[in-house]
């Protein structure tokens, strides 16, 4: 259990705010976590079942009491069934987000939305070609309409396979075929998996575990990939840009309005509306020097990478931001939003506005987002926020000064340009770097924050340990924000943390050692980047051959479970911080952390110590390198005592030589 400020977060801004919250007797998630102790052991082990009303049932984890539920379900079945439900819920969340983006693209193409245009024309034409959608002399709008209709059909598809399955390497698809998990339709797969968990449905743990993968794949190769592709088409393909992250981006003399959640539809309109003369005039009239828009969580990542809007923080910062007393309004959409925000909003002057028809909250003001008048409603929302500036209590304002510059907005496509240069875009330098032993491999460090671990420590310690061992990091979601706040998304981080080989690559192509790829649906970019690495050649034809891995050191959401299953189910080894809630079944744990590799080419590992977890990953990358008969690593890992020191290469070598 965590109690001191330092145990709660490594972020100095968070530590400062936690002190202020305590002084002002305001509760945050950590306080509620402590009040929640002890947490139920049955729940933690995954052996509580309430899927029918003969229960709830729970199996005795230590063997004395009942070993099966009333229907006869064993601990193995109960654990696997609970996990399948959670994987399906995670998949549903990402996919329903994707569906909204498709709707928005469709209404924009039909001229029924306000304030949007089709900005990612190159990607639109590419996707249309991939899907065999050709219209002679088509305008972007005509093409976008057809692409959006085809994407929408992916959700309700009743026969065949998802279109994006064709993107997967042949060997990966063969494994899916053998295991019976090839995603066939986003909604169909999710419903099918949920059905299997109904009382008296599937009662074989292995089948239920395959269903966990099936639900996950419908997300990664379905809902999430559609969300990423179509967001890029509608809102524009991100290009790397410079911005800032942490609570220090809030400005005392400005109206501060935050967006929080995941769907970029409304927040993109808010960015546009924030420039409107009417809003700026209202700010002036209110006595503010301007409007500062900033974001929390993945909505923040979306408008960061497309517009450079700064980040106020990651998941656990949603409450800290309100404790600054300087936030006029927080506009939320869906996912990862604390209902507890209403209590802080009452103590401070913040208006919290919910906007999605899918997520209403007690005590929030609800202004439903209507895409047909998106700009008007965005402007109305902002004006209400500006109006609230007058209610700010200057005595309650405490804005930490901490913020860090960052580079964000890489994509599978833009990495081509960065690696190969604009005139010969290619993944060749990346594959060569791995083959020559400059780079050990590529690892996606992603996922949430959780109160069960010191905020950001898992992300930062793991990433630093991997960088020291010449591992290129790709990031999304709250993990990307954690690294952004700590300065790891800047090219200069290579000087401070990277091993020599990685630093040489970063210096040569001008990349940071950690690449911000976007929001959590943008984990699909990591899949498409792996496709490009396979396609470039020299590192195997299967994800399972590549020296790559995934990690979610501070995961907490069901969405992370779905992501875990599509990443591992696609053949990529993945380490989670807290274990998945399966330890009540030794059989399920064994399958996920061992047996699964035979069926899917990869497995999970559970390790809450981020440095130990990093070494599980390093060992994995080395074993893949060995299997590919790659050159041994060119350089020794950067000595641990030089980590964080802006060392020149020669000096680092001298230290390494002793």
């Amino acid at each position, binding site marked *: 259990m965590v109690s001191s400020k330092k145990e709660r977060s490594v972020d100095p801004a968070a530590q400062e705010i936690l002190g202020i919250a305590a002084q002002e007797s305001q509760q945050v998630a950590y306080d509620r976590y402590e009040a929640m102790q*002890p*947490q*139920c*052991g*049955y729940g*933690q*082990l995954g052996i509580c079942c309430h899927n029918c009303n003969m229960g709830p049932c*729970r199996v*005795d*984890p*230590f*063997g*004395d*009491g009942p070993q099966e539920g009333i229907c006869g379900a064993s601990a193995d079945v109960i654990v696997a069934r609970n996990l399948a439900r959670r994987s399906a819920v995670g998949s549903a969340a990402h996919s329903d987000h994707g569906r909204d983006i498709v709707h928005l693209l469709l209404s924009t193409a039909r001229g029924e939305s306000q304030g949007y245009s089709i900005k990612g024309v190159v990607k639109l034409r590419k996707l249309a070609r991939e899907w065999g959608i050709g219209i002679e002399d088509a305008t972007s709008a005509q093409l976008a309409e057809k692409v959006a209709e085809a994407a929408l059909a992916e959700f309700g598809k009743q026969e065949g396979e998802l279109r994006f399955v064709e993107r997967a390497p042949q060997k990966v698809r063969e494994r899916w075929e053998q295991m019976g998990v090839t995603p066939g339709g986003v909604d169909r797969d999710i419903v099918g998996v949920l059905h299997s968990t109904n009382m008296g449905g599937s009662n074989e743990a292995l089948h239920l575990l395959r269903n966990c993968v099936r639900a996950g794949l419908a997300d990664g190769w379905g809902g999430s990939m559609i969300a990423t592709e179509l967001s890029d088409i509608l809102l524009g393909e991100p290009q790397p840009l410079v911005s800032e992250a942490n609570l220090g981006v809030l400005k005392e003399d400005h109206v501060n309005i935050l967006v929080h959640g995941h769907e970029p539809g409304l927040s993109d309109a808010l960015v546009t509306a924030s420039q409107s003369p009417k809003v700026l005039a209202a700010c002036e009239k209110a006595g503010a020097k301007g409007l500062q828009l900033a974001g929390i969580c993945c909505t923040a990542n979306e408008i960061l990478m497309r517009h450079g809007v700064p980040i106020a923080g990651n998941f656990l910062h949603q409450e800290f931001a309100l404790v600054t007393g300087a936030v006029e309004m927080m506009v939320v959409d869906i996912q990862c939003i604390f209902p507890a925000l209403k209590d802080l909003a009452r103590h401070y002057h913040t208006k919290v506005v919910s906007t999605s028809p899918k997520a209403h909250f007690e005590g929030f003001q609800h202004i439903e987002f209507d895409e047909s008048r998106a700009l008007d409603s965005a402007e109305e929302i902002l004006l209400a926020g500006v109006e609230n500036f007058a209610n700010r209590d200057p005595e309650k304002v405490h804005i930490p000064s901490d913020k860090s510059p960052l580079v964000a907005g890489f994509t599978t496509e833009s990495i081509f340009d960065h690696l190969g240069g604009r005139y010969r875009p290619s993944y060749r330098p990346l594959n060569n770097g791995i083959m020559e032993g400059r780079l050990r491999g590529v690892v996606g460090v992603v996922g949430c924050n959780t109160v069960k671990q010191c905020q950001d420590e898992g992300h930062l310690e793991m990433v630093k340990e991997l960088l020291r061992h010449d591992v290129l990091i790709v990031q999304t979601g709250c993990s990307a924000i954690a690294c952004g706040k700590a300065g790891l998304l800047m090219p200069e981080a290579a000087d401070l943390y990277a091993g020599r080989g990685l630093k040489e690559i970063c210096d040569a192509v001008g990349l940071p050692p950690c690449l911000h790829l976007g929001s959590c649906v943008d984990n699909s970019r990591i899949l498409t980047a792996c496709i490009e690495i396979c396609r470039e050649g020299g590192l195997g034809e299967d994800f399972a051959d590549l020296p790559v891995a995934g990690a979610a050191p501070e995961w907490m959401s069901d969405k992370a479970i779905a992501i875990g299953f599509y990443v591992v189910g696609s053949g990529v080894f993945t380490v989670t911080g807290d*274990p998945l809630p399966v*330890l*009540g079944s*030794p059989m399920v744990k064994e399958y996920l952390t061992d047996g699964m590799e035979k069926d899917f080419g990869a497995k999970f590992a559970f390790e809450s110590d981020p440095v130990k977890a990093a070494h599980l990953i390093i060992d994995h990358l080395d074993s893949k390198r060995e299997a590919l008969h790659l050159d041994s690593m060119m350089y020794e890992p950067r000595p641990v005592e030089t980590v964080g020191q802006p060392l020149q290469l020669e000096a680092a070598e001298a230290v390494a030589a002793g």
Partner: protein
Amino acid sequence: MKHMLVVNVRKCLGCKSCEVACAVEHSESRDLFTAIQEKPAPRTRVRVGQGEGFAVPLQCRHCEDAPCIKICPTAALYRADADSPVVLNQDQCIGCNWCVLACPFGVISFDAQGRTLLKCDQCFERVERGERPACVEGCPSGALAFKTADEVVAGKQAASLVQIEAGLGGEDA
């Protein structure tokens, strides 16, 4: 001062969290996620019993005049002093099960897997460190408490005073 486990039956929801907490406390690792993998599996010393419409955790009452101590032929069951809990010296125990028969509450059992007796030791190591027993700490609804007899009496008196006060105004107190 001798403490005892006090159960507020109305607060017990029958979740059996006390059983899990007890087993973990009596494991090698004392950590849930590690204990679950230990062999032999750790055992609980408290059992949630189901009455007519109520659930209640049952564990050793640590009787003042303990029948189990009296009947034990090898003095394996003992208490260090008058305020200490009744505990078992595994090395002395011959597994005759007389204590199982003698216990009026049925809270001593024989663990066939570990070939040993199971009974609550009132988490004496935790209590020596100033902590409460694991089952008390593990109860999410506050149904379990660890109190001295004096504290129980004082609590009851305070509650009855409230009743008297509520009844004042002519009625006999």
